[in-house]
C-alpha cells in the first residue's frame, strides 16, 4: 500500500477571458465596465424575434492571436453551437459557444515556478492547452430581498474559454500558469485580464492519485476570480480529497463553489444533477472559414514571448534574473528599456537597474494594483513617463564616464522625473559635474595632507592601517564641495602618500 505522503494532485484549468474588443461578439452593442445596468444592450443581445447574430471579426482575430501566441493550431474553419439552458442570466435561453469546432486547438504556455530565493530563477515547464473556444458571456444577476435583478450589459461580451490539459501538479504551478497566461494575453493585446472587473474567471478541476496511477475522479470548482482563490481552492480540494480517500470513502464527481471569505469550498451540484445542455449547431451563424492570409497577418502581431525575452536579457545583455524578470513582466516597460539600451549599448545593466528600481517605483507611486493578481507589481503606463528612453541612457552614460557619481545619479534621476529635462542640463544647472581635473585636485590633496591635524592618520596609513586613509578623504571632498570623483581622489591620494 502506498503511504499517504505520495499523493499527487492533478489540476486542469478552464480560464474564461473577456477579449479586448470594441463591440460584443455577435452584436454591434459596445461594452465596458461601470455602465448603468442594461445600457449596453441591443435587440440581438436580448435575443428579440427577428434578430440575427453576426460574428465580430475583432473577437475572432483576438482569439486567433491568442492561438498564435501559444503556438496552437488554427483550424481551417470554426463553428458555433447552441448550449440550451433556462436561467434568466441569458435572455435567449441558449448560449452561443463552440463545442465541436473551436477556433484554437492545442498549443502550450511556458511557466516559471518560484525559485529557491527571490533572486534565483525557478524551474520552467510547459503546460499544454487542449483548445480555446469563443463564446458569449452571460448577464449578471443580483439577488436582492424578495426578487432578483438582471443586468444584460455583460451578456454577449466576447469570452474566450481556454482549456488546459491536466498538466499542473501543484497550487504553485497553477499560480505560475495563470501569471504567465495573463502576461501573454495582456502583452499581445488579446485581453486586459482585470480580475476586479471580472475580465478573467477560472474553473479549477482537481483530482488526486498516486504517481503513475490512472487519473482519479475530479471535482470542478467554478467561477474563481483571483489567483489566490485558485491557489487556495487547489490546497483545500487536495487536502479534502486525501482525507476522503484515506478514510476509505470515494470522491464524487461534482461541481463545487468557493467561498473566499470562509476559505472553503462547497458542493454546488453532483453528477446526477448535471445539466443536459442539448447542444446543436447554431443555424444562424454559418461555419466560419479562418483564412490563411488572416492567420499570417496576425502572426506578425505576436510579441516576443516573455520568457524568450527574459533569456535574451540574461544571456545576451547580462542582466541578473531579478531585473530581467521585472522588465519582461511589462511589455511596454521592456520595449522602453530596449530603446534606452539602443541609445547607450555599453551598459544595459546600469540602465536596467534604474528602470527596474527607480523608474518603476516612481511610475507606480501614482498607479493602482491589479485585482486579479495581488502579488503582481502595479501596472504602469509609460505613455505619460516624463523621462524618455534616450534621456535615461544619457544619465547612465554620464555616470559611466565618471562625470557624476552613482549617488548623484539618483538625485539627477529624481529631478529628471520631475522636470523631464536631460541629465546633462540638470548636472550643469546644479553644478554637479564631478571634478576630474587632476591638477587642481592634486593641489587640494597636497594642502590637506600638509595640515598637521591629519598627521596621525597619515602615520597610521603608512603603518599599514588601510582604513586610516578614509579620514583624509572627507576634508578633500569638503574642499571640492563634493564635486570630486571619489575614485580619482582615492587614486591620487594614494599616489601622494607614496
Amino acid at each position: 500500500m502506498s503511504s499517504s505522503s505520495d499523493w499527487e494532485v492533478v489540476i486542469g484549468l478552464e480560464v474564461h477571458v473577456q477579449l479586448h474588443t470594441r463591440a460584443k461578439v455577435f452584436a454591434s452593442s459596445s461594452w465596458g465596465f461601470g455602465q448603468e445596468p442594461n445600457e449596453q444592450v441591443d435587440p440581438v443581445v436580448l435575443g428579440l424575434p427577428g434578430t440575427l447574430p453576426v460574428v465580430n471579426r475583432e473577437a475572432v482575430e483576438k482569439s486567433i492571436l491568442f492561438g498564435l501566441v501559444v503556438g496552437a493550431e488554427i483550424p481551417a474553419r470554426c463553428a458555433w453551437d447552441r448550449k440550451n439552458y433556462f436561467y434568466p442570466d441569458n435572455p435567449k435561453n441558449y448560449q452561443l459557444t463552440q463545442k465541436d469546432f473551436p477556433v484554437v486547438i492545442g498549443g502550450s504556455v511556458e511557466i516559471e515556478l518560484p525559485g529557491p530565493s527571490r533572486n534565483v530563477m525557478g524551474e520552467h515547464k510547459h503546460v499544454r492547452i487542449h483548445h480555446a473556444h469563443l463564446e458569449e458571456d452571460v448577464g449578471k444577476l443580483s439577488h436582492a430581498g424578495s426578487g432578483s435583478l438582471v443586468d444584460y450589459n455583460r451578456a454577449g461580451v466576447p469570452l474566450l474559454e481556454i482549456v488546459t490539459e491536466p498538466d499542473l501538479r501543484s497550487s504553485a504551478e497553477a499560480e505560475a500558469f495563470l501569471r504567465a497566461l495573463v502576461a501573454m494575453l495582456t502583452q499581445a493585446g488579446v485581453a486586459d485580464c482585470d480580475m476586479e472587473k471580472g475580465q478573467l474567471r477560472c474553473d479549477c478541476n482537481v483530482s488526486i492519485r498516486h504517481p503513475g496511477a490512472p487519473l482519479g475522479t475530479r471535482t470542478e470548482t467554478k467561477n474563481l476570480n483571483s489567483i489566490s482563490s485558485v491557489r487556495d481552492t487547489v490546497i483545500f480540494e487536495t487536502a479534502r480529497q486525501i482525507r476522503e480517500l484515506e478514510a476509505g470513502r470515494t470522491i464524487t464527481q461534482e461541481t463545487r463553489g468557493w467561498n473566499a471569505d470562509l476559505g472553503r469550498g462547497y458542493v454546488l451540484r453532483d453528477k446526477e444533477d448535471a445539466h443536459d445542455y442539448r447542444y446543436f449547431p447554431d443555424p444562424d451563424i454559418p461555419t466560419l472559414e479562418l483564412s490563411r492570409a488572416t492567420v499570417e497577418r496576425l502572426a506578425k502581431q505576436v510579441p516576443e514571448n516573455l520568457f524568450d525575452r527574459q533569456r535574451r536579457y540574461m544571456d545576451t545583455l547580462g542582466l541578473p534574473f531579478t531585473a530581467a524578470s521585472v522588465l519582461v513582466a511589462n511589455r511596454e516597460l521592456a520595449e522602453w528599456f530596449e530603446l534606452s539600451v539602443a541609445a547607450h549599448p555599453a551598459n544595459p545593466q546600469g540602465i536596467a537597474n534604474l528602470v527596474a528600481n527607480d523608474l518603476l517605483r516612481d511610475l507606480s507611486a501614482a498607479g493602482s494594483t491589479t485585482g486579479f493578481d495581488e502579488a503582481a507589481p502595479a501596472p504602469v503606463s509609460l505613455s505619460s513617463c516624463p523621462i524618455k528612453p534616450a534621456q535615461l541612457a544619457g544619465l547612465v552614460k554620464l555616470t559611466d564616464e565618471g562625470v557624476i557619481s552613482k549617488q548623484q545619479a539618483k538625485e539627477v534621476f529624481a529631478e529628471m522625473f520631475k522636470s523631464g529635462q536631460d541629465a546633462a542640463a540638470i548636472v550643469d544647472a546644479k553644478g554637479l559635474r564631478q571634478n576630474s581635473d587632476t591638477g587642481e585636485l592634486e593641489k587640494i590633496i597636497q594642502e590637506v595632507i600638509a595640515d598637521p591635524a591629519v598627521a596621525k592618520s597619515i602615520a597610521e596609513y603608512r603603518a599599514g592601517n588601510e582604513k586610516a586613509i578614509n579620514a583624509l578623504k572627507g576634508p578633500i571632498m569638503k574642499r571640492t564641495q563634493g564635486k570630486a570623483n571619489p575614485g580619482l581622489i582615492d587614486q591620487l591620494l594614494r599616489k601622494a602618500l607614496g
Partner: protein
Amino acid sequence: MMTNSRSEGFGAEVKRRILLGTFVLSAGYADAYYNRALRARAKIRAEYLAALSQVDILLTPTVPTPAFKVGEKASDPLQLYLEDIFTIPANLAGLPALSVPCGQSGHLPVGFHLVGAPLSEAKLLAAGRLFEAAHGFAHQQAAL
C-alpha cells in the same frame, strides 16, 4: 404566464416538434438521432448532387395526392408528413426548387416541382416561365 401561453398558444404539431427536438438532442440520444439525421441529410444532398450532375433539373409532383379535406388527416401525423415527401428533400439538401401549377386532377389543381443544382435559380425560373408560356392555365382559377 409562460406555461399558459405555451399550452394554449401552441398547436398540437408545434408542441410535437418541440418535444421531439428536445428529446433527440438530449444527452445520450443526440448521437443516435440528431447526429445520425445529420449524416442522412449529407447523404441526401450527395445523391441529389450526383443526379444533378447528369441532368439539369429534377421533376416530381409537388405533393403525392390532390388536396384533401380540412382535418381529414389531422389524426395521422405520419400521413401528413408524407405529404411533404417531394418538397422536403430540397430543403434538406439545400437546393433551389420551384413549384409550378400544371393542370387539374378532377376539379382540384395540381403542380409539379423542379429541383436544380445550387445557385440554379435562374434556370428553374426560366423553365417555369417556358412551361407557363406553352400552356394556357397559368392564370386560371380552380372551380371549387
